[in-house]
């Protein structure tokens, strides 16, 4: 870790091959070692989860996949993930549908639209949103966002109620529902997706952009033909990071959502639940067996994340050659 003056470094670059071989092998092994270490940690966690889940599943009296209620510490342990899986996926879906376009828009705004003087501080401000702890999001959500969602919810019920999904069946209840949770999660993942997309857009080869403009493209056409295709894998990766947070968010959801064990497609009705929220709510009072059951639900969340990520990897893999810039 000694800093050497550039001249010396230049001199060293011309040194014998064996020297660089040694450096190469040290560096290679170091980075591979990190990869292996990471792998071991992750595998250990997965193994740990699988082990605990196995204990739980062997004693479940209900069907783990289709049961609605969560009552593993009852004399007859009955627990299932139907409601949790549904709630997790729906709320994360709502969050992504809102957050990804908006985040890409903001990232474009910062990288291509805003005057530099606005762009820099604004980029910084968006990053700041990532720094807000989830408990603050939760408190803000229940004290500020939920009351403000009242009108919007009633409105959606009135004009979009025919879609069934946006039909509100209970009158006069506070909108502590999956839809509000989705919006809150969207706000929470926005900075993550924005930050990564923004960095990706900044790396777009200038040549591509200028070539497009030189051909008479409008700014939008330039973005559509040069920026977005280049940034697509990055956007997907960023979205996956955001999705990871949306799926695993605990405290904010636990504070905002009026959880119950009813599976309802009416996303404006209070109710439902998510994996992480359920773990947080049930963990404190859980008996050892109850904890195992919660681990099993954590494992399912693992699998869901994996499937989504796998799909994303497939999309990205189509343009595997990352030689970003054949400029």
């Amino acid at each position, binding site marked *: *870790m*000694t*800093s*050497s003056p550039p001249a010396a*470094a230049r001199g060293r670059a011309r040194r014998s091959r064996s020297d660089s071989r040694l450096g190469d092998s040290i560096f290679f092994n170091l980075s591979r070692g990190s990869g292996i270490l990471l792998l071991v940690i992750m595998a250990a966690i997965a193994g740990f989860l699988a082990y605990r889940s196995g204990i739980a599943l062997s004693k479940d009296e209900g069907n783990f996949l289709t049961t609605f209620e*969560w*009552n593993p*510490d*009852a004399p007859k342990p009955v627990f299932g993930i139907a409601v949790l899986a549904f709630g997790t996926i729906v709320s994360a879906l709502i969050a992504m549908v809102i957050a990804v376009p908006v985040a890409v828009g903001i990232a474009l705004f910062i990288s291509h639209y805003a005057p530099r003087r606005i762009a820099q501080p604004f980029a910084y401000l968006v990053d700041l949103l990532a720094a807000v702890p989830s408990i603050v999001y939760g408190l803000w959500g*229940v*004290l500020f966002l939920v*009351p403000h969602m009242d009108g919007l919810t009633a409105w959606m019920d009135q004009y979009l109620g025919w879609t069934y999904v946006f039909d509100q069946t209970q*009158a*006069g*209840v*506070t909108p*502590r529902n999956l839809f509000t949770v989705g919006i809150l999660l969207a706000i929470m993942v926005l900075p993550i997706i924005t930050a990564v997309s923004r960095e990706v857009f900044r790396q777009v080869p200038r040549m591509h952009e200028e070539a497009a403009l030189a051909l008479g493209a409008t700014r939008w056409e330039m973005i559509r033909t040069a920026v977005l295709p280049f940034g697509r894998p990055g956007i997907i990766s960023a979205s996956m990071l955001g999705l990871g947070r949306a799926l695993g968010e605990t405290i904010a959801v*636990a*504070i905002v*959502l*009026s*959880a*119950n064990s009813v599976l309802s497609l009416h996303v404006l009705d*209070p109710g439902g639940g998510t994996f992480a929220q359920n773990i*947080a*709510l*049930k*963990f*404190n*009072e*859980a*008996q*050892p067996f*109850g904890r195992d059951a919660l681990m099993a639900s954590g494992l399912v969340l693992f699998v869901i994340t994996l499937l989504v990520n796998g799909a994303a990897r497939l999309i990205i893999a189509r343009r595997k050659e990352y030689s970003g810039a054949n400029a």
Partner: protein
Amino acid sequence: MKLQRNGSKALAIGAMALVGSLSLAACGTDDNSTSSSGTSAAASGAAPAAQIACGKGGQLLGAGSTAQTNAVDVWKAAFGSACSGSTITYGGGGSGAGVQQFNQGKVAFAGSDSALKPAEVDASKQVCAGGQGINLPMVGGLISVVFNIDKVDKLVLDGPTIAKIFDSQITKWNDPAIAALNPGVALPDAPIQAIHRSDDSGTTANLTGYLAKASGGAWTYPASKTWAGKGGQSANGSAGVSAQVKQVKNSISYVELSYAQTNSLKSAAINTGASKPVDATAANAATTFSKAKIAGTGSDLALSLDYATKDEGAYPIVLVTYEIVCDKGNKADSLDTLKSFLTYTISDAGQQAIGAKGYVPLPKELASKVQAVIPTLA
């Protein structure tokens, strides 16, 4: 070596941060007794230092029930002010978590709102060399049924009505069953927003325990930490529930008395079958505690509470939190502090100190039984 220089820069910054935090350590202080806005326990007179017999000092770890967190908070402030050598840390992670931590030998005592189950007692024998875990009742509390209805300040309910409200069988405030209990009160023609705990909790267990005994069969579910009733909305923790009752008109829920007090929520009186409805006050709950029987054997003082009580002025929905310790085989290095801390908490001064915070001081007779056990801990 650009990056390596980066690396060393980062290291330097890390080092600076460390040094910074250490120098920060110099400017921060644990001493809250002299701060202008701070009210230290000793200054507020919660407990004169003379009444507290300090132990050898050191670190004492406890964990568990969140229902007693605020009581322990008061105690450790008073104890810490008197005994500067001792640091008591109570991690309120919930009763279930507390008991598990105790049985893993990670904490010296656990707070729990239910007595140890036989399996847990067996497990505790691993940690308590030559002994086992025992329950010492320490914090009395009551659960008030809180409501938020405009222009209604007094509300009387009974077991069956509460059960039906929380099970969505009674859905309007002007339902004949409620009106019959509240003659002369103008109840609104509005849907009832029943709010229950979304997390598992001892509070729910005690309420449903009451409903199972005193609702005349209207509550068809067993007593459980997990909410089983139909319909209604839910919120996380007593704090979340209180916030919802405050926010939502025509709502009803159940929280510990301290939460009802700090959030200025209106509590319903309970018609137990006594000559007049019983208000949710600490004094009325103390009456119930004085009738409680001890279910434990030996030094184990687990209580059995009579939810179906019909005594005059006895509030039926009460809860007690135990401190769970080893009768023999406590950790040697913290045993002394543990004993002196528990001696203080069950003393008159200790019990009175939490009485002002929405808890129920245990009746003298019961307290003296606990006081007799503490010196025998080893």
